[in-house]
């Protein structure tokens, strides 16, 4: 199956989902998966393509959700402006955070992102006048009457998801993307080549945060509610796991990770502690044994099987995973 056929089949499946799900729970799940695929793929820009281990994506997700929710629910601003506000505020906060955080490297950067996640959670929890604190923010409307239908909201989300992923694909294929990967593989060498790693890191951090903000906005206007628990440390871990499980640094990996993690979240609904133990174990196991992620590993495995047989079509080299993909080791 060629690349184009695969893409067409995938698209057809995505379009067909609400035809099967209707207004039921299945479509609801599909919308959540779509929203998280934006989160995972944008976090992948940081982890997979730039080598920045960030555990703060749920914070930007939440900043987007609250920004959009507050301006639309409280100040009756048009919803599309709310979406813009979400992206803008998340990007702005990321820009401000990138100033101190990129003076640090490696695990120090990771620690800064964890600290930022905890700070954000505390603000979501305690800033009653704006976020509603533990009571949550109620009354966030759907964008328009027609989107009261889950089917139509699904298509709205799908449009955004496709746009975001198209942007990410173009980004990774551009000279900007090449620069990011150069920085990931060897920052000193990239610097010697005349790139400015700090600027690239700050730029990609802002872009990823903007996408996360967009995801937050889509989520809040779908659930019509926002609560600190939707955007806490555990959610950051979920998104992180989605990326490294699927395969950091590959385009198809993170969405597959989203499917697996969402499936587990659904199955283990109501067993939060058990779920987190499983997720923690998965994190450790992946880092130890499968740092490149499940998708690249199974592609390589399938290819070996094919090569083992005498009569086989030539392996599709276009989808060759990069050797240095995965969590930087």
């Amino acid at each position, binding site marked *: 199956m060629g690349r184009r056929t695969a893409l067409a089949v995938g698209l057809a499946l995505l379009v067909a989902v609400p035809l099967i799900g209707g207004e039921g729970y299945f479509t609801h799940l599909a919308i959540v998966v779509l929203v998280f695929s934006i989160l995972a793929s944008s976090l992948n820009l940081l982890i997979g393509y730039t*080598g920045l*281990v960030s*555990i703060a994506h749920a914070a930007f997700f939440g900043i987007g959700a609250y920004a959009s929710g507050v301006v639309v629910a409280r100040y009756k601003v048009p919803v599309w402006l709310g979406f813009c506000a979400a992206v803008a505020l998340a990007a702005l906060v990321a820009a401000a*955070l990138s*100033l*101190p*955080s990129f*003076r*640090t490297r*490696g*695990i*120090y950067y*990771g*620690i*800064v992102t*964890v*600290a*930022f996640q*905890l*700070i954000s959670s*505390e*603000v979501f929890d*305690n800033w009653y006048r704006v976020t509603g604190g533990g009571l949550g923010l109620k009354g966030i409307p759907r964008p328009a009457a027609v989107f009261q239908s889950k089917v139509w909201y699904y298509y709205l989300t799908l449009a955004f998801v496709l746009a975001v992923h198209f942007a990410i694909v173009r980004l990774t294929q551009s000279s900007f993307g090449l620069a990011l990967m150069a920085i990931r593989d060897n920052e000193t060498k990239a610097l010697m080549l005349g790139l400015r790693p700090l600027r690239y890191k700050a730029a990609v951090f802002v872009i990823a945060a903007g996408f996360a903000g967009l995801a937050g906005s889509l989520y809040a206007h779908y659930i019509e509610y926002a609560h600190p628990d939707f955007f806490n*440390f555990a959610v950051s*871990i979920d998104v*992180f796991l989605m990326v*490294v499980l699927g395969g950091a640094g590959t385009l198809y990996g993170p969405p597959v990770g989203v499917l697996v993690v969402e499936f587990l979240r659904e199955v283990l609904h109501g067993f*939060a*502690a*058990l779920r*987190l*133990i499983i*997720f*923690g*174990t*998965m*994190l*450790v196991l992946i*880092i*130890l044994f499968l*740092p490149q992620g499940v998708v690249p590993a199974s592609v390589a495995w399938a290819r070996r099987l094919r090569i083992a047989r005498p009569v086989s079509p030539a392996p599709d080299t276009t989808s060759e995973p990069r050797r240095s993909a995965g*969590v*930087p*080791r």
Partner: protein
Amino acid sequence: MTQVVANGLVNGAILALFALSVTIIFSILRVPNFGLGGVFVWGAFLAYVVVVQLRMNFVVGAAVALVGAALLGLVVERFAFRRLRTASEEAMFVSAIGVLIIMENAAYLVWGGDTYSMPVAGLDFRVSLGGLAFLPATRVMLLVVATCAFAGLHLLIRRSRMGKAMRAVAQDRVAASLLGIPIDRVAATTFALGSGMAGLAGALVGATFSFTFEIDGLSGLKAFVAVVLGGLGSVLGAIAGGFILGLIDSFTQTYLTSEYKQVVAFGMLILVLAIRPAGLFGERGFRADAPRP
């Protein structure tokens, strides 16, 4: 005012103990062991089992917590970090986060979300500090035990043969292994030592305050704040960082805000990392490599 300082010192002693356990593992093995947060809470619960459920002396409880946590540390080192010995810090960071989540939620599965406390027999009175401030005797005990632990650890690292091996590994792992120092054993001992300290800290906190399974997650990161404040890789820096953070916490809570006290602590972490990445007492070269000579 004096009361605030006294409370701050008690909090600081806990943070310092915890920061110390973080810093020995980090400076010797370069493992950012967030999982210590989980060890910490298990230390508290182990002591609880011994003191409240088995009705034994608190000293026994603290000893059990220390040994149990050290064993836990051995297991964690063997299964979550040994294979990553030559991996990047990022990979170890991720593994550590995984360990933390596993231990925290395992504690929740076993103990539930209830709040526990353990009374220490014979220590239910208050100590007056010259009439200026009052501290429950348990908190005074905490200060004393923490000080003993600092001294013991210092002697162990400076004087013992294993301590010498640890310092060698911290300075240059490859050279150390070429000279025949058994890295695996040093790593295991370091983990046992650090985890034991964290377990002891857990037991002490359990005796001093009431606790839930959730005490660990935040205190784990706060220990990192203390470590970074004091300068990574510096033992004295970790202790000083712990006390400074404890005092700052105490003052913010009393005079500034109780809702946003983590914002202050973590905001400070980000600031310190940005302005003085080597920490307040760290040497200028971004990383001090060995426990301070």
